[in-house]
């Protein structure tokens, strides 16, 4: 399977994730207003908040480890620029219904996608599908914040 096709498959499959996660989640999410949110951050900075099932946090950590490898070995200049300002944090609070991870992009590379599955599919195509499966099983919900630096 070509790299592009695999990436497209992963992205297409991943599009199902929020709906599936939502079905398992108790609190309903209000319907989105305005244009669909994307993994691009034209505002110059961004934050993705991953809510991960506590029992699957180790799986998510494993995916993160591969994501770091994917970012550090990326061929394209754009991906390397992204990697330089792609900060990953984990909430230090005791987990409740979920363990929370943050991806902060400051500054974000304009027009670049910060979809972790896309990055994995590009750099580690042979691993992309199993990593996607692990991520799908672990992630309950993802929130997106497009940010603007005030000063």
């Amino acid at each position, binding site marked *: 399977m070509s790299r592009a096709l695999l990436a497209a498959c992963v992205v297409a499959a991943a599009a199902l994730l929020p709906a599936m996660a939502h079905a398992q989640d108790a609190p309903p999410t209000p319907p989105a207003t305005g244009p669909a949110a994307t993994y691009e951050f034209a505002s110059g900075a961004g934050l993705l908040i991953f809510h991960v099932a506590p029992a699957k946090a180790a799986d998510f950590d494993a995916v993160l480890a591969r994501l770091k490898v994917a970012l550090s070995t990326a061929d394209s200049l754009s991906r390397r620029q992204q990697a330089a300002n792609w900060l990953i944090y984990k909430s230090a609070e005791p987990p409740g219904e979920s363990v929370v991870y943050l991806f902060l992009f400051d500054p974000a590379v304009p027009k670049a996608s910060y979809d972790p599955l896309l990055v994995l599919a590009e750099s580690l195509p042979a691993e992309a599908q199993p990593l996607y499966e692990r991520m799908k099983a672990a992630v309950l919900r993802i929130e*997106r914040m497009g940010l603007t630096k005030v000063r």
Partner: protein
Amino acid sequence: MRLFGFLPVVSRRVVVALGVAGMLFTGAATAQAQEPAAADPFKFDGANPVMLMLQVKSGQEAVFEEAFSAIRTGLSAAEKPALQAQGKSMNLMRLTADLPPGQARPYVVLLDPPVAGQSYDFTQMLYYSGAWKADDVEGRKVVDAIFEKLKASVEQQAIWPLAKK
């Protein structure tokens, strides 16, 4: 992968610092003389990053940003290196999304790392850090004006302790 918009009502440690701060300030002298002060939740050890999440009242964004900018400028101009470092550590970011009318706007301040031992409580910074001459009549007017802007604009503050991955 489709994404959800940011949901401000999540389980983060919410601290209504400004409301408490007003009382703290008026009664500070007597309280400090009588009993040890309660631990300041806005003081960190500097070993780990912290995210402060603020909700700013709708329509008060410019007021808040003015006050925040004044605090950052004041700290950066202070003589003490710790205060200068504190000013430098405070990077403010605003949620860009359109919000329903009347909904508070989230702001994020990432402290990575926070300056150890320095309080990030607005009241502490303004009145007790020494960056402003709060005990001088004219200096006090400046500080009060900044504090009033914060009181008028900040709806809620939350502290989010983080670990680097």
